[in-house]
């Protein structure tokens, strides 16, 4: 079923389905645990595709999104620390996307009211790449990016 869904997305014939997925949104705030894993979004290969799959409009570049504890160079791509803070009011979710990974979307964090819009985790990077922080705030999307050099391949290794 899942692969069929992906095929439809790829051929562009799944508009209805697309909007259905979009309607499901990232995660339902406060109900993240129950939310089904968004396979379509995690299967995407490009930023445009990811945005389309989640029903997002073109994100605005934002200086209010910052990376912290995130090195410019990773000694090993198997473990790359990433920290993201959003100063945009009503931040609802923060997503990490790695441009040159086989699948771009890496993680989505749903931020309920009362939780600081700041998360820190570690990702794998197959090669040097731009890393995007995609923030949804008050229904709108914002993005910031950072280039991270990888000195060792973390995938397959």
């Amino acid at each position, binding site marked *: 079923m899942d692969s069929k869904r992906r095929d439809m997305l790829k051929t562009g014939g799944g508009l209805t389905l697309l909007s259905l997925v979009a309607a499901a949104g990232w995660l339902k705030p406060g109900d993240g645990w129950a939310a089904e894993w968004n396979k379509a979004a995690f299967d995407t290969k490009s930023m445009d595709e990811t945005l389309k799959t989640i029903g997002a409009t073109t994100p605005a570049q934002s200086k209010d999104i910052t990376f912290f504890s995130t090195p410019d160079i990773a*000694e090993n791509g198997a473990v790359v*620390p990433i920290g993201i803070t959003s100063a945009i009011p009503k931040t609802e979710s923060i997503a990490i996307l790695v441009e040159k990974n086989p699948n771009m979307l890496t993680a989505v964090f749903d931020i309920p009211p009362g939780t600081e819009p700041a998360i820190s985790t570690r990702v794998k990077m197959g090669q040097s790449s731009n890393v995007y922080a995609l923030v949804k705030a008050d229904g709108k999307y914002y993005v910031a990016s950072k280039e991270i050099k990888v*000195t*060792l391949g973390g995938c397959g290794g």
Partner: protein
Amino acid sequence: MRSHHRRAAQGVAALFILAAATALGQGSPVDEIAKYRAALQDGNPAELWEARGEDMWKQARGPKKASLERCDLGLGPGVVKGAYSELPKYFADADRVQDLETRLVWCMVTQQGYTEADAKKNPFGAGNDKKADMEALVAYVTSESRGIRMNVPQSHPKEQEAYRIGEKIFYYRGGPHDFGCATCHGDDGKRIRLQDLPNLTKVDGARKAYTTWPAYRVSQGELRSFQWRLNDCFRQQRFPELEFASDASIALTMFLARNANGAEFDAPAIKR
């Protein structure tokens, strides 16, 4: 097998970084790698091994359904705090010098009733299907010496002999490449490809190297013990395989650990 390739890849990447860093006016690659290492310190997955090892230490296990809580690591039955900072050492009950792993095997056999072969069966983990209890126990015990200064004894004649034999092994050249430990680790300021090589015959090099093992190896996603470190060095030396908890491994560990005396133990660490 791949390490050389990795080194090559790393080198090429490093050149690229150097150029990029200069162009973008970022910090130097060395500074950035230091930042990377610092960022990793915040959460070291070695803690997962430490926690598993502590559980294992306290669980009744083996044919005798006993825990290791009466195991004497050299400071008395059940004393874990600081024990690793004084190992290897001579144990009268075994009448030999033992390093941590050998001593754990001893306790698993004498107190838990395992056969020696069973206790030594899986020293180095490989993913989820082959988790090594030994590395977990090592992680727990070594973590209880963090911040304590290395104080490896040389009072018993067998401790002195182990040190001298370990030194000989360190300089022992063999195999098709004529390699010995000292080929790479006996001189200051050398590197292999772009990786710095600690001089293990000098106090500074020995301290820095020995006090940061065991370590969670990011490249392998595993916690690696000092026994593993030695095993893998000999593989790259083109020697046959160093047997886990063998006499040669203990003697060599004695030589390297004793040379680190006075330095604060700072492991399990996290390394590339």
